């Protein structure tokens, strides 16, 4: 019982929420939430590149023309966002797998606790009879 209580007040505060989801649901939900954040991160990195070396950006623009430059930057941006989303998928899968082991132990302890309660209840009932 103390193990169950310790877990619920410690790591369980975070991990028990995961118990509501299947792995695929959990990962997919986080994958979807990563799309806007990936776009934001890509835009911010693009902004940093632009600030860091405006001359380079302008040189690319002059060398291959407006459409070509836009296409290249857009392709880089899309690649980054896709990479970011898959990286987040990997990280959330990894997180889920890490916690699942502890959740299994927690479930096992809960079942054990239930069994103890049932045995005690049965003993009590027998004594009352």
């Amino acid at each position, binding site marked *: 019982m103390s193990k169950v209580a310790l877990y619920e007040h410690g790591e369980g505060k975070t991990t028990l929420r995961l118990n509501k989801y299947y792995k695929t649901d959990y990962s997919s939900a986080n994958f979807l939430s990563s799309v806007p*954040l990936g776009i934001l991160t890509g835009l911010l990195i693009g902004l*940093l590149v632009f600030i860091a070396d405006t001359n380079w950006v302008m040189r690319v623009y002059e060398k291959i023309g407006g459409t070509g430059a836009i296409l290249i930057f857009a392709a880089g941006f899309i690649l980054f966002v896709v990479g970011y989303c898959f990286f987040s998928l990997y990280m959330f899968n990894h997180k889920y797998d890490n916690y699942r082991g502890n959740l299994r132990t927690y479930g096992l302890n809960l079942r054990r606790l239930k069994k103890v309660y049932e045995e005690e209840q049965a003993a009590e009932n027998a004594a009352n009879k």
Partner: protein
Amino acid sequence: MLEEFYIAHRRPCGYILRAVILFVCMFIISRYIGFQAFISQPWFIAILSLALAFVPIRFIMIAVMAYTTVQIFFLSYGIGFVTGVILIVMYLLYFRFAGQYGFLLMILPILYLIKIPLAAVLVLAATGPAISVITVIFGTTFYYLIHYIDVHAVAFASSSGATEFEKGEMLLQGVFTNREFLMMLVVMFVVFMIVHFVKRANFSRSYELAILIGTGVFIILTVACELLFGDITRAKLLYYCVGGVVSGAIAVFLTNIIKPLDYSRTETVEFEDEEYNYYVKAVPKVAFKTETVSVKRINKRKDG
């Protein structure tokens, strides 16, 4: 004694430790880039640290990032904006997924200041997953960003002709073409990976050996890089050699002494020989210390 005290007062110990680390971190940031007098005062930092000690680690990290950005905004809007964007990108790229390593982002600048950043890298490589190398990269970037702004603060403040945009450009180009920063980034990455893969070797004392090899590689690489690409001085040589050895000793101490204090950790090992698969579960004895077993004796009823 220490273990029992930690077990008995685990929660308050955690809060105190958080508050102390936060205070030291923000105090160092304020000494480096304390451009706003009011929020750089020790009493303000102490109150802020105490308040932040009770919030989750992710919010603590965001608060430290915000504190840094606000300080820099008082130097220059352009520099502050660029710093803020870099810190947001760092958060979105990694700490969003692994908030538990956020503390390292705060500890690394402290360790860089006292010349033993390798200690954190070795401990993390020996105890954490391979992906946490990103924490080391971002921690190093964070330190060199603050350091660069500190060193060039007068130049940024006095360059009245430059626009805020140009100041941001100067910062980015200055930091990301800094030879020492790039060298440290590569060295730390290589050391982390070597330690991480050596400690996974299946023999006893692999942690110690990994740390020893990591320390050696750090000293050799840094000295070699300085000899090849830079100008090695006596102070730098001392920093790399003595700092490296001290870091290695601290890392061995932490992985051997502090880690077993994690009394709740139950370790499992799986291995096999020709005939069997072995699944070993190691439960620390200290976990059983608090358990009190009461044995109830029921005497046999005497009939008649």
